[in-house]
Structures are given as structure tokens and as C-alpha cells.
């Protein structure tokens, strides 16, 4: 047959396979016509396909035994009542790398022992056995309370076995499957392991296979198992190199990660001679996992784990476990040095460090940042909220001095199954400390308030009729809650569930409730504060002599309050101020990027990732002394500037540790089904597709210092490449319609300026436009001559501007009102401009003619963001506030545009952000049949709330 003929055969074969079996005959009759041989050829291939089963899915196998013999669990070879020498077998414990383990009774000494039967292979070579015995004797001499003793070696009827101390307890691996350990417990266990290592190393014995499953947690503390056995195994096992024992791939099959791999030192992986320092590396990896609950080095394949061990650093401990003392991070860091010469010199050194940490809980004060601080604040309100990594906390380690009598107790609360926390908003603890409120999403994506009673066991419960609720705040008596939902300020009585709607509040920035039942709230980002009675009435402005006031919080007298001013265009003016219902005079208390809350005698606020407490005199309204860190890693919503914490009068502190949430890029069809997962996980802020949807550009944060750079991913290649390398923030890329250029914002010269670069060439950035207002590109005209961008003006809020890229290049405003306008994007035929505006109080999507002729039409029904046109201009997509992607059919007439009612396509899992973040979380493919969506990962949606009781004990000397 010719190759054309074969191609024809194969093409018909593919097409027939794609059809249901019943239809194939008819299909082939139709396609093959009179060509009988063609049809036979295709049919015989189809038959072969049907019969092929697992053909070629296995590996080349030596013939002689059927596959069935290899599968299924191997029954233990010894059973109860059997006897090995003086040992009565009692029960089978498990099978490990070397062989089977049994619980047995030593009839001479009448004690329980563990018997490890060495598989016959491991000891069938006489010289190997001699070496094995020699090594075993050396290990048997190791006598230490933290090391599981090897009593003796036995041999009977061709079976070699080791007799070891029998231990009751669970392995550290089993313990870690339940999550990270409390800090004190982790530290104690770590010290015990380090003691064992130090003792063994002193006798010249290296463990070589330290891992959680080799640590037994007994009533008397941790004990190390299998000391030196890795070496024995290697020696006995037919001349395998020391490195290869960790890759029992012929047993575990391709693609499975060998158990020990994640704890192996780089030199071990490279097959080099191993010394005690390899144990220190493994120790660092185990310690990291005990504290954070995560493996230090992870991957989906052996190769990726190996690559992580050889080339990457695990995420800082402080990010995952904010209360961990920095010194502990340092111990781990030095254990995990890639070059063993840079590790701690000995286990003894590590032991001393850990003992010192256990005796000296750290004191950390965080100084105010300088220029870097300012840049971050500028970035703050341009960049999306990128929330939360997991942590679980147990004991507060920020005690300034060890205080044995006053303990700060912390624990964590996870949302009930099916509910995901909204980690962009602070959890709210009631003033009496008995109840915790948080914003969550139920299984259908609906945003509700959830309440967890801290004094009663049981899961958190949703509060009825709180749809879309955000920014909850408590009444002083802990019986009612104020919140914002569906564009209104509302209250709910937590006993009766009665909801009361009080006032409009379309883009709220927090509220506070005093003992006279006066609520002060910020209905929108730029309207200032209002007051209203909790019983109802008309809201009245509360004048304060400062910029836009957000997150008011009453002081104990119920008249004075603190609030936050973001001062977006003059970040040096941002900070926490104090004012009063009785006077508009406002005075700055602290410079910070977050809101502050009052706790008796203190102000708590966020700075540089830490939660700080500063002494505060409620009478003189003066702050005193230096702020002290209460927790080392606490999240901030960089859009609203709300620190993700709250505190009760009773001394309970609650917070989210996360500041950065991971997302992944997924392709979904119009029904929301996942049809592809093209990109790696990361902190992605905003994305833009190339014109043919063959590539995507996105801004991604470098994990350690959270610097955003632009990355490009070509779907066919599957490997992202970095486009910008500047130490500043490069954000909000928008691909040009001809695919050659990418416009973006950069903070190289604050405030954010407009830049562009060659889409095919890294390092080709050039400045497009520099002004004194922050700018973000939002779309190009189809001919590439006009670039639309948002500019944020202190008087008029967000406005839509155009920068002509030919001719005069003089930018001019397109939509500029006192409302906020964003996301200006031109229809493909260049006649209609879609954008969002909050002119009605809530953000809605509008379309108007371009250039303006007076025609304007609202497109969205109940809120909308991120409009995107389909390439043929016949459909407009947008994101509803409940994170549902919506579609609207549009028909272009000579002077008007007809729009159909919005149709919900599917619920997304984008990391939500507010409007001042002008990020793009999705992009439609040109045909509008599939969408690339930046979707929060499961991990990012399962962040627990950290609860610290009696937090201020940490401050007492």
C-alpha cells in the first residue's frame, strides 16, 4: 500500500473509532463505497483495537509466569503459632522494604520483640551475608533510648531475620497524615530525633534512610527505626549501588515515587558516598514536614521530586506556620543546604540549636519598611487579592520571654466539608470571644456568612439569607452582626436569624457598631464614612479630616474610632488614624498598609507580613513603644487593605496566615467542564490569550519575594517561558490583536506606567506612557492602533482612556465620570466600547458607541466585571459577582446595539478580587466555545482559620 493509502485507512479508522460501535458499519459502507479491500483493512484494524486490551501498556516481561502471580498482596509467610528459634510468632505487623515484620515473643526473656524477616534474595550470596552480619553487629552495639535496638540476627531454615525492640505507638508518617504537629510537640520530637542521630553519628553509624515512617512515636517519646539498615539492604542486595535502593521502581512501577525519595540528600541522589550530613538533610526535610504539614520537596514524578531536591528551596516555614520562630527556619534552612559543606557540621550542633530554641521562644519586632514599603503599598491597590496558603498553629511562639504560667494557646478551625473559606476577607471574632464568623462559599459557590461556636463542639453553620455577604462586624453585645451583601448594609440577629436592611453600600469598606447602637460604615471606597442607627433611619455623613476612610473601628468609649486611609496616589499618607463622632479632627496613629483594630490597651495592625501589636492609651489616644510581632505571617487583602485578622475583647485573636493563593490555568467548555489543564500551578494575577488562543501571557509572582513578572505559555509546547526579569512588578498583560506585542503595567517608575514588549522576545520592554496617575491596560482596538487603559484619578476614580499608538500619541479620556469605570474593551468591529461602571452603586457592564454618540446600554443584570467580546462580535462575556461566567448575545445595528438577557454559563473558582484590581481571570477562545480560566487550586481553598486564645499573654513580661 502507498503511504497515501495508509493515511486513508488510518483516517477512516480514527473516524470510525470516534463513533459508537453500532454506527461504524454504516459509516464504513458510506465511506468505502465499492472499495472492499479498504473496508476490510479498516475493519480488521478496528477488531484488533477492540481485542488489544492492555497490549503495550505493560513492560517487556520474562515469560514463564503469568501476570496474575505478581499481583495482589502477598500473604505473610509466617503465621501465629509458628516458631523461629526461641521466638513465637504472634502476629503479622506489616511488610517493609526489606521483608516482613512480625510481632513475636522471646520465650527466653519473656518479652515482645519485632522480627524482621529478610527476603531470601537479600541474603543469598555468602559473601554478602558475611558483610551483612558484620554491619548488623555494629548496629546492634548502638544502644540509645531514642534508637530502636537491634537485639540479634537469626537464621533458621534458610530464613534470615533480625530481632528488634518491639515498640507500641504510631509512626511519624501516620501522625503527619493528620496534618502538621503542634510546635512544641514538633520541637520535642525533633530534639529526640536529633539526640538519636548525634549518638549514632558519634559511633560512626549513619542512618541513610531517615524519614517519617522510620520514626516511631511511643508513649516514651520518639524512637528511630531501621538505623543503618539501608546500608545493609544495599550490601545484601546483589551489588546495587547505595543510591539505587531508593528507586525500587521495578517493584513499585514507573511513575510511583519511591518512599524515601523526598528525604534524600542531593549527594545521595547523585550516587556519591554518603556521610552523616545526608542524615542532617533528611532531618531538615522531616522537621519541615512536622511543622508545616507539607513535604519539603514534592513533585508528581520521580524526576520532579529529584529536580526539586537538587535545585529548589521549599517555601519558607513562616509562610505556612506564622508562629514558628525564625530561628527554626534557620535550622531547617541549614539542614537543607544543597552542598553538604554548607550544612550544620553535626547532629549535635542541630540538637544544641533546637534546645536553645525550645528554651528561648523568639521575640520579633518588625521595623517599618522604607522605600520598599512604599512600593508595596502602591502595588497594593493595583494588584489583586492573592490569598491564602494553609497553616495550622498550636502554640504561640512570639512570647517575648518564656512565661511558664501564662500560655498563649492556639488552634485552627477548618470549614465544614464542602464549604470553602473566602480567604480574601478577615474572619470576625465576637467581642466575647465565643463565636467566629467567616465568609465562605457553599458547594454551589454561593457566598454566605458562616458561624462557628467556639464554646460548643460542632461544625460551622451558615447564617440564612446572608447571600453575597462580606465584611461582617459584631455588635458590642455579641448578639448581632452587621455585614454587606447585595449592595446593602444589613444586620442579622444571630439568635433569631432576623435580617434587617439598613442602607445602600455598593462597594463597602467595613463597618463598626458601638454600645449606643450606632453603626459607622464606609459604603463605598471613595465616599467617606456614614453613620446610621442599628434600628434604621437615614444614613448621615461622618466627616473626618483625612482621605477616604475605610474600616472604622470604635474605641471603648463608643464615640471615638480608628480607621484606615489608603491614600492610593500618595501612599506615604496611608495609615491608621483616630477621629470621633463629635469632631472631624483626625490624627494619624501609625503608618501601615492595613486597617487596624483595637484590643484593650493595644492597636493591632499588619505590616510587612506580620501582625503587630502596639501599646495604645485609650485616654490620651497615644501609641507608645515599638510594635511587637504577635504572629509572623498574617494575610492582607491588598485590594481592600484589610488585614486578615480580628481580635475579641476577651483576648482571642483569629487570622488567616495566607497572603498568596495558588491558582492554575484550566480550559473549560461552555458548560464549565474542565477540558484541559495547560499550565503549572502558581500565583497568577491576570491573563491574556494570544489572538489564535495558541498561547497565553500572564503575570506570575515569584514565590519567595512575590515579585510579579510576565510569563508566556505556548500550549503546544507546554513549558512556560519568562518574558520579563525586572526586579519591579510587571503586571496586567494584554496581548495585541496581531499577536506581536503585549501591553502591560509596570511599577518600574511608580505609579504603574504603561509598557509594551515584543511577544516573541524576552527583554524587549519599552515605555509607552508615563503620567503621574496609575494606569492599567485593558484592551486594544482590532487594528492595533488604539490602546485602552484604566487610569485612577483622585477626583473621578477609575476612568477609561485611550492611547493612540500612531500619529500624535496623545492620550484622551473616553469615559470619565465621578463613578469608577474600568475594563474598557472595544468590540472587534471597533464600534462599541464595553466597560464596567459603579454609577448605580454596584458595578455593572455597559456598552456604548465608540466614538460616543449618546447610545449606551446596560448589559449585566446583577453586577458584572471583566467584559470580553467574542471575536465575531456577536457575544459578550462577563463575570458576575458570584463568580459565574455570563454570556450575552449582541446584535449590531447601524446606530444601536441589541443585547439579549444574560445567560449563566458556569461557576468559576477564580480568586475573587474587587474592582480596583483590574485583573483578567479568564479569556474566551476566539470561537467562544471554550475559556481559559485562572482557577483557585484545592489547596488555596482549604485554608484554616488560626485561633489564638489569650494572645496578649505573649506581650507580658
Amino acid at each position, binding site marked *: *500500500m502507498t503511504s497515501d493509502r495508509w493515511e486513508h485507512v488510518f483516517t477512516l479508522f480514527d473516524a470510525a473509532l470516534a463513533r459508537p460501535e453500532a454506527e461504524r458499519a454504516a459509516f464504513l459502507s458510506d465511506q468505502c463505497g465499492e472499495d472492499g479491500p479498504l473496508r476490510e483493512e479498516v475493519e480488521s484494524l478496528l477488531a484488533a483495537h*477492540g481485542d488489544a486490551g492492555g497490549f*503495550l501498556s*505493560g513492560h*517487556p516481561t520474562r515469560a*514463564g509466569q503469568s501476570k496474575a502471580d505478581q499481583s495482589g498482596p502477598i500473604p505473610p509467610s509466617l503465621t501465629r503459632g509458628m516458631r523461629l528459634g526461641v521466638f513465637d510468632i504472634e502476629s503479622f505487623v506489616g511488610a517493609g522494604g526489606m521483608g516482613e515484620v512480625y510481632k513475636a515473643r522471646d520465650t527466653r526473656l519473656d518479652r515482645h520483640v519485632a522480627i524482621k524477616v529478610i527476603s531470601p534474595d537479600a541474603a543469598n550470596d555468602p559473601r554478602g551475608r558475611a558483610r551483612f552480619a558484620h554491619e548488623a553487629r555494629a548496629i546492634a552495639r548502638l544502644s540509645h533510648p531514642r534508637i530502636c535496638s537491634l537485639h540479634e540476627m537469626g537464621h533458621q531454615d534458610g530464613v534470615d531475620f533480625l530481632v528488634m525492640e518491639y515498640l507500641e505507638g504510631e509512626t511519624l508518617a501516620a501522625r503527619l497524615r493528620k496534618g502538621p504537629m503542634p510546635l512544641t510537640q514538633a520541637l520535642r520530637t525533633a530534639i529526640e530525633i536529633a539526640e538519636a542521630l548525634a549518638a549514632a553519628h558519634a559511633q560512626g553509624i549513619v542512618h541513610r534512610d531517615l524519614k517519617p515512617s522510620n520514626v516511631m512515636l511511643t508513649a516514651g517519646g520518639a524512637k528511630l527505626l531501621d538505623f543503618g539498615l539501608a546500608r545493609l539492604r544495599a550490601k545484601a542486595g546483589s551489588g546495587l549501588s547505595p543510591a539505587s535502593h531508593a528507586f525500587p521502581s521495578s517493584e513499585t512501577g*514507573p511513575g510511583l515515587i519511591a518512599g524515601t525519595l523526598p528525604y534524600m540528600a542531593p549527594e545521595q541522589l547523585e550516587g556519591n558516598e554518603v556521610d552523616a550530613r545526608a542524615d542532617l538533610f533528611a532531618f531538615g526535610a522531616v522537621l519541615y514536614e512536622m511543622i508545616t504539614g507539607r513535604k519539603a520537596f514534592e513533585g508528581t514524578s520521580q524526576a520532579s521530586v529529584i529536580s526539586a531536591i537538587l535545585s529548589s528551596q521549599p517555601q519558607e516555614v513562616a509562610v505556612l506556620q506564622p508562629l514558628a520562630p525564625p530561628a527554626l527556619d534557620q535550622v531547617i534552612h541549614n539542614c537543607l543546604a544543597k552542598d553538604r559543606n554548607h550544612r550544620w557540621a553535626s547532629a549535635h550542633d542541630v540538637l544544641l540549636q533546637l534546645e536553645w530554641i525550645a528554651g528561648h521562644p523568639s521575640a520579633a519586632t518588625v521595623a517599618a519598611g522604607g522605600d520598599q514599603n512604599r512600593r508595596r503599598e502602591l502595588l497594593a491597590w493595583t494588584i489583586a487579592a492573592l490569598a491564602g496558603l494553609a497553616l495550622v498553629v498550636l502554640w504561640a511562639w512570639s512570647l517575648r520571654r518564656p512565661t511558664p504560667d501564662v500560655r498563649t494557646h492556639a488552634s485552627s478551625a477548618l470549614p465544614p466539608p464542602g464549604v470553602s473559606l473566602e480567604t480574601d476577607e478577615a474572619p470576625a471574632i465576637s467581642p466575647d470571644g465565643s463565636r467566629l464568623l467567616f465568609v465562605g462559599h457553599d458547594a454551589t459557590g454561593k457566598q454566605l456568612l458562616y458561624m462557628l461556636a467556639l464554646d460548643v463542639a460542632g461544625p460551622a453553620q451558615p447564617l440564612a439569607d446572608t447571600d453575597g455577604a462580606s465584611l461582617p462586624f459584631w455588635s458590642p453585645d455579641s448578639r448581632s452582626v452587621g455585614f454587606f451583601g447585595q449592595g446593602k448594609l444589613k444586620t442579622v440577629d444571630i439568635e433569631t436569624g432576623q435580617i434587617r436592611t439598613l442602607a445602600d453600600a455598593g462597594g463597602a469598606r467595613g463597618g463598626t457598631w458601638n454600645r449606643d447602637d450606632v453603626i459607622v460604615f464606609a459604603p463605598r471606597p471613595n465616599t467617606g464614612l456614614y453613620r446610621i442607627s442599628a434600628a434604621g433611619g437615614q444614613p448621615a455623613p461622618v466627616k473626618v479630616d483625612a482621605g477616604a476612610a475605610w474600616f472604622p473601628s470604635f474605641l471603648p468609649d463608643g464615640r471615638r474610632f480608628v480607621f484606615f486611609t489608603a491614600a492610593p496616589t500618595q501612599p506615604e499618607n496611608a495609615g491608621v488614624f483616630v477621629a470621633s463622632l463629635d469632631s472631624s479632627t483626625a490624627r494619624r496613629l501609625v503608618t501601615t498598609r492595613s486597617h487596624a483594630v483595637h484590643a484593650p490597651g493595644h492597636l493591632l495592625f499588619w505590616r510587612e507580613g506580620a501582625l503587630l501589636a502596639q501599646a495604645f492609651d485609650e485616654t490620651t489616644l497615644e501609641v507608645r513603644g515599638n510594635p511587637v510581632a504577635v504572629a509572623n505571617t498574617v494575610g492582607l487583602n491588598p485590594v481592600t487593605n484589610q488585614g486578615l485578622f480580628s481580635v475579641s475583647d476577651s483576648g482571642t485573636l483569629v487570622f488567616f496566615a495566607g497572603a498568596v493563593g495558588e491558582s492554575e490555568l484550566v480550559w473549560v467548555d461552555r458548560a464549565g467542564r474542565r477540558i484541559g489543564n495547560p499550565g503549572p500551578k502558581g500565583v497568577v494575577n491576570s491573563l491574556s490569550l494570544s489572538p489564535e488562543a495558541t498561547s497565553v501571557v500572564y503575570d506570575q509572582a515569584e514565590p519567595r519575594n512575590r515579585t510579579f513578572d510576565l510569563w508566556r505559555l505556548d500550549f503546544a509546547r507546554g513549558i512556560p517561558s519568562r518574558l520579563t526579569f525586572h526586579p519591579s512588578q510587571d503586571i496586567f498583560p494584554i496581548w495585541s490583536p496581531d499577536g506581536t506585542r503585549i501591553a502591560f503595567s509596570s511599577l518600574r517608575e511608580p505609579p504603574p506606567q504603561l509598557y509594551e514588549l515584543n511577544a516573541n522576545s524576552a527583554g524587549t520592554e519599552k515605555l509607552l506612557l508615563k503620567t503621574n496617575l496609575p494606569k492599567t491596560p485593558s484592551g486594544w482596538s482590532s487594528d492595533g492602533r488604539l490602546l485602552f487603559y484604566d487610569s485612577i484619578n483622585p477626583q473621578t476614580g477609575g476612568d477609561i482612556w485611550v492611547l493612540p499608538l500612531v500619529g500624535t500619541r496623545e492620550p484622551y479620556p473616553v469615559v470619565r465620570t465621578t463613578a469608577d469605570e474600568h475594563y474598557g474593551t472595544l468590540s472587534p468591529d471597533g464600534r462599541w466600547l464595553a466597560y464596567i461602571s459603579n454609577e448605580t452603586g454596584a458595578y455593572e457592564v455597559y456598552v456604548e458607541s465608540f466614538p460616543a454618540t449618546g447610545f449606551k446600554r446596560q448589559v449585566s443584570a446583577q453586577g458584572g466585571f471583566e467584559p470580553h467580546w467574542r471575536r465575531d462580535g456577536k457575544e459578550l462575556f462577563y463575570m458576575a459577582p458570584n463568580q459565574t461566567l455570563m454570556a450575552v448575545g449582541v446584535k449590531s445595528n447601524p446606530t444601536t446595539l441589541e443585547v439579549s438577557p444574560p445567560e449563566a454559563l458556569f461557576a468559576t473558582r477564580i480568586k475573587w478580587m474587587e474592582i480596583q484590581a483590574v485583573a483578567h481571570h479568564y479569556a474566551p477562545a476566539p470561537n467562544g466555545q471554550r475559556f481559559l480560566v485562572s482557577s483557585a487550586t484545592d489547596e488555596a481553598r482549604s485554608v484554616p482559620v488560626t485561633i489564638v486564645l489569650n494572645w496578649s499573654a505573649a506581650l507580658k513580661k
Partner: protein
Amino acid sequence: MSHNNDVTALLVAWGQGDRAADSRLMAVVYEDLRRVARRRLRAERPDHSLAPTALVHEAYLRLVDLRRVRWQNRAQFFAIAARLMRQILVDHARAHVAAKRGGPGWKVPLADDLGATVPRDVDLLDLDAALGKLTTIDARLGELVVLRFFGGMTVEEAAESLGLSPATVKRDWSRARAWLFRELR
């Protein structure tokens, strides 16, 4: 171990466009794979399968300084290793036949136990011959079988290595499997 830097340098050179590095790389990797495979073939119990992925990954770890080699070069390494693996296994099977030692040769499971047909194995040499025929019909299909079966690559890895989309690779894999199965039954 002594080849460590050689292979890394060769891969880097290959990545920079030195195509002559390809054949030198083959020579070094072949030597290593053959040594390890031999050891495995001798040591393993007869009922064990030889997992090429494991061998190839081990070879990679042994031979390549991961910190200096880019991912694309890694794909190249595995493609080379897959071709070598085929050669090694076939050589081994031939040696068996030639020596007539009576021991079982290497077999390929033709269908799993749940398949519609009677399970039986096919000789590796027969598979190799059929693969040769398939390659003359469609070289890309032949290459794909080498990568996936002898190299243990996933669909995605093979797609990366061949510069095709995973969808195309999946389609080609159906074609190749059906053709080979028909040829061998």
C-alpha cells in the same frame, strides 16, 4: 559516574545546536543503560518485568547534572534512551536465542487477562520485526511506539518529544497499537 560531566556537556552542546553531540551522547548513554540492564536481567527473578522507565530514569540521574540541563534537553535524553532501550532488549533477546540456553526469552504481554482474547505473550523479537514494518509504513507511528513502550513515556512526554499535540499522540497511539496487534496475532 565518571561520565557524569560528559553527558551533561553533551546535552548542553546538543541544546545549543551541536548535532554531532547526538551520536556521542548515544554512545555514552548506551554503555550505561546496557550495563545496568544486564545487571538487572541477571539479578531479577524471572517473573519480574523490566521497567524501562525506571532504568532510563536511573541512567538519567546517574549521567546528567540536572542543574545544568534544560527541560527540553531532558526530553531529548529520554528519546535517545528509549531508542537505546529497544536496542538493548532486542540484543538481549537475540543473544538468548543464539545461545539456546533454554531459558525463557523476553516476552511482551499481548493482552491483559481481562481482554476479550485468550491472553498470550508475543516474543520481543517478533514485536521488533513488526515495529520495523510499521516504521516503513509510518515512521512517526514507529517512533511513538519506541518512546512509549521502550521509553516508558506518557502521552504528554511523547507529545513534547515529537513536537505534536497530546491529542495527535493519542490518536497515533490507537493507530499504532491496533496495527501492531493485528500484525502479531
